[in-house]
């Protein structure tokens, strides 16, 4: 039975049966996609398995990679509104399929606490880490800025498409991706928020969960999209 299992798992593209200790949180979008596929399969409707309708990109394999990074400056947040700084680190070595990356989306899950009712305004900035330095000890050397966005009253999770990462991966097939995340609270609101909450930054630091959703298109199974002839 084990031998047959092994053969079948190889057919599924796995070396052995995974044995995770506990399941990672699955974002709503993945649940939505699989539910839609199940419904379509049950009704016998034809499906384009090389296009992810829910994300609007071509692709036949979706991976959610957990962040393996660490926080910087974990002392009390400064009065300039800087809430947290974190190095996000993603292991992309599993993404080695012959094909191309069509999407890389950073998902920041803010945790169960909603910041919506506070009208808290966060500024999220994400940069590429050019040089890690001494891992976990020195401040990394930063490269180009990928995201800078102001979010008013955030709740649930925030998603950011990292188009630059897609281009980089398709050029060099990176094994690791290190990003620098900084979250700031808008200064004019900070004092008001501070008065209402014990320390929103501290809470955010404890509840923040980052992951990277990557979509790949295997050209062996999916032909590149062709333009219709006129």
């Amino acid at each position, binding site marked *: 039975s084990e031998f047959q*299992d092994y053969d079948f798992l190889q057919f*599924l*593209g*796995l070396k052995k*049966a*995974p*044995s*995770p200790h506990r*399941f*990672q949180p*699955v974002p709503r979008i*993945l*649940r939505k*996609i*699989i539910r839609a*596929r*199940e419904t379509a*399969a049950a009704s*016998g409707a034809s*499906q384009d*398995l090389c296009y992810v309708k829910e994300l609007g990109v071509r692709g*036949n*394999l*979706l*991976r*959610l*990679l*957990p962040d393996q990074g660490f926080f910087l400056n974990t002392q009390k947040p400064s009065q300039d509104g800087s809430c947290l700084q974190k190095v996000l680190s993603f*292991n992309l070595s*599993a993404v080695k399929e012959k094909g191309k990356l069509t999407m890389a989306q950073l998902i920041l899950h803010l945790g169960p606490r909603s910041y919506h009712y506070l009208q808290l305004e966060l500024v999220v900035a994400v940069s590429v880490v050019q040089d890690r330095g001494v891992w976990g000890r020195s401040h990394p050397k930063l490269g180009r800025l990928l995201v800078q966005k102001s979010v008013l009253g955030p709740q649930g999770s925030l998603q950011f498409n990292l188009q630059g990462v897609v281009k980089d991966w398709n050029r060099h097939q990176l094994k690791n991706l290190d990003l620098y995340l900084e979250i700031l609270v808008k200064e004019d609101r900070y004092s008001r928020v501070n008065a209402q909450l014990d320390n929103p930054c501290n809470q955010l630091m404890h509840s923040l969960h980052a992951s990277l959703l990557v979509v790949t298109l295997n050209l062996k*199974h999916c032909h590149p999209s062709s333009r219709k002839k006129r």
Partner: protein
Amino acid sequence: AAIPIPKGLCRNLCHRHQLFVNFQDLGWHKWVIAPKGFMANYCHGDCPFTMTTYLNSSNYAFMQALMHMADPRVPKAVCIPTKLSPISMLYQDNEKNVILRHYEDMVVDECGCG
């Protein structure tokens, strides 16, 4: 007038049977997040020579059945899947990556003699 078919013959003819694969039975529930299982189905039944043209058969199956009549050393045409469809699976690997992948040819939609 139609020739009456003996009772029970139709039931034994090649057709699709329902089979639900429950991942818990395979111990796969430890790493497959969704679905909990799927309707895989299977094909089973006879492919008699006289019926091959009715049983969604290929030309090859007809020739094989004909050859079996002429020489029993040639095996009979058998009941096989003629149309399959994929399923999507959401699972977690040992690197804590959550993966959504499609697997072709996992569900038997139609059966025939081949």
